[in-house]
């Protein structure tokens, strides 16, 4: 058995290896969660563009609060919702560096709504990576601004009642209408084809920043099998059947122009 493995695992046979920009720390995410894949894709792009020494990440409050443990770039951990303001401060002083925020739905679309909208409106030359799983994962599965109509959570135990709680907010469509955003897209990472498209979107986002064209915003519709109380496979299927119809995948704004009717 050992011999066969040694025969197969050779440089010329390798089609994939982990990017050196992911650290050896064990991911704190639940098995089946999309965060690890999105982390890896961002670091792959940073490695391929050879910009590690010029990249600063902003970690939010939420499941990805410890993102800096896994990505081998300089990081600032922000207060809940304030990542776009923190990124603004860094980018304004170091306009030639690459600055990105990594935020969840509660962080970006509830408590940090003002910071998100105004950073987008000013056209801060940063990348915002927005992971939307429709729930507060870290605090134990509470209702998020993006929780779907009728979706159960620990603070909407009978399902989200949009009459009482308002409908889920489509933050990505909202900010796409602001003049400062140059590239706005919605992606997923639950299948190999989606992973490839998502990586391309991340690359485009960093290229927009490189060319100083404005703000690049990539939403990832992701799962939260723990919070949704499903197996990883069930969660992915539920996401396809319920999240994607409300949060359709694809580009919304390219080269500063809306490519989708909103």
């Amino acid at each position: 058995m050992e011999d066969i493995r040694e025969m197969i695992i050779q440089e010329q046979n390798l089609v994939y290896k982990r990017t050196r920009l992911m650290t050896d720390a064990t991911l704190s995410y639940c098995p089946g969660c999309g965060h690890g894949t999105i982390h890896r894709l961002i670091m792959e792009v940073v490695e391929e563009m050879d910009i590690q020494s010029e990249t600063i990440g902003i970690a939010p409050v939420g499941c990805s609060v410890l993102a800096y443990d896994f990505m081998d770039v300089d990081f600032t951990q922000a207060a809940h919702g304030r990542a776009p303001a923190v990124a603004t401060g860094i980018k304004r002083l170091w306009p030639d560096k690459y600055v990105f925020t990594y935020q969840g739905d509660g962080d970006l679309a509830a408590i940090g709504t003002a910071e998100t909208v105004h950073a987008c409106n000013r056209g801060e030359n940063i990348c915002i990576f927005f992971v939307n799983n429709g729930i507060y994962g870290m605090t134990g599965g509470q209702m998020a601004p993006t929780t779907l109509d009728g979706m159960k959570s620990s603070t909407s135990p009978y399902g989200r009642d949009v009459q009482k709680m308002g409908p889920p907010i489509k933050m990505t469509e909202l900010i796409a209408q602001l003049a400062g955003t140059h590239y706005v897209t919605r992606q997923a990472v639950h299948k190999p084809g989606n992973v490839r498209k998502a990586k391309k979107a991340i690359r485009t986002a960093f290229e927009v920043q490189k060319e100083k064209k404005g703000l690049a915003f990539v939403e990832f519709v992701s799962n939260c099998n723990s919070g949704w109380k499903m197996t990883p496979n069930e969660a992915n299927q539920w996401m396809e059947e319920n999240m994607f119809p409300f949060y359709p995948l694809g580009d919304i704004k390219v080269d500063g122009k809306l490519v989708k009717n909103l």
Partner: protein
Amino acid sequence: MKEIALMKGNEAIAEAAIRAGVDAYFGYPITPQSEVLEYLQLEQPEKRTGMVVLQAESELAAINMVYGAAGTGKKVMTSSSSPGISLMQEGISYIAGAELPCLIVNVVRGGPGLGTIQPSQADYFQSVKGGGHGDYRLIVLAPASVQEMADFVDLAFELAFKYRNPALILSDGLIGQMMEKVELPEQKERVSTFDQSWVTTGKTNDRERNIITSLNLDPELQFEHNKKLQEKYKSMKQDVRFESFQTDDAEFLLVAYGSSARICQKTVEVARGRGRKLGLLRPITLFPFPEEEISRLSGQVKGMMAVELSTGQMVEDVRLAVNGKVPVYHFGTFGGRIHSPEEVMNAIEDKFIGGF
């Protein structure tokens, strides 16, 4: 050659910031300190020194822009007035926890709530006891003149970088709006080298990645971090500053800072004219507090009075320093009113009647 100008305190802060080589100012308008941002936008410091000036969407955003930028090792600041400073407390706590240098200016107005836009010293507790959540302290400087508004910008940054700690200039609407002659400091170069042991400017091959954070999930680590912070705050004692006015032979002592100290200085002159041995101690650093000097003077005087534009906040620190050795009273007016030297004189005579 000396450059003399007639300026408002708020304008002096802004001009001094450009001259101190500050890299960025992030702020949001609020009375009575809006002249800081207005002056900077009019002056276009990006053309003079390359300094960045940005009007944020809120004080929350402004302080978090400061947090991000301070983490890159540059000299960054904000200014606001009481309600805005309250909004910033979350961010200030993060900055203190992450041990970043920066400058915050509070041109205090009367409160609580929306209060009044008139001057007050009612934010003393918030400034010197931490202000936001968690055990932390700011370096707090209290200017008593437009000249000190200008001079303390550079001093605040010197101390902030020395201790890697946020510094606060605690001014008020009186000094912020008052016009006085000011000798402008010389233009300093903006700093272009950064301490790579902690700044987030991009991980290069010669160092590990730097992480700016105030998060320690492990209580043992947070315990050690808190201990280290407390040791740092204790060590700040070496930078305590105060001004003594006629204290050498004083039998009674006024303790006052900022604009109240200006008023009390006149009271001392009036008292001395009547042959009464009154002195004034003016704390310049409110944190670290000049507790040793106050303790020393408590062995000399018969009593003290803290005179503040508040219902009595600093008086508690004076009492702690005096530790019961002599009576310590408070006098102050508040809610945007300003006491006169005569009112202070009357209060002194009332409390220490027959003492002179």
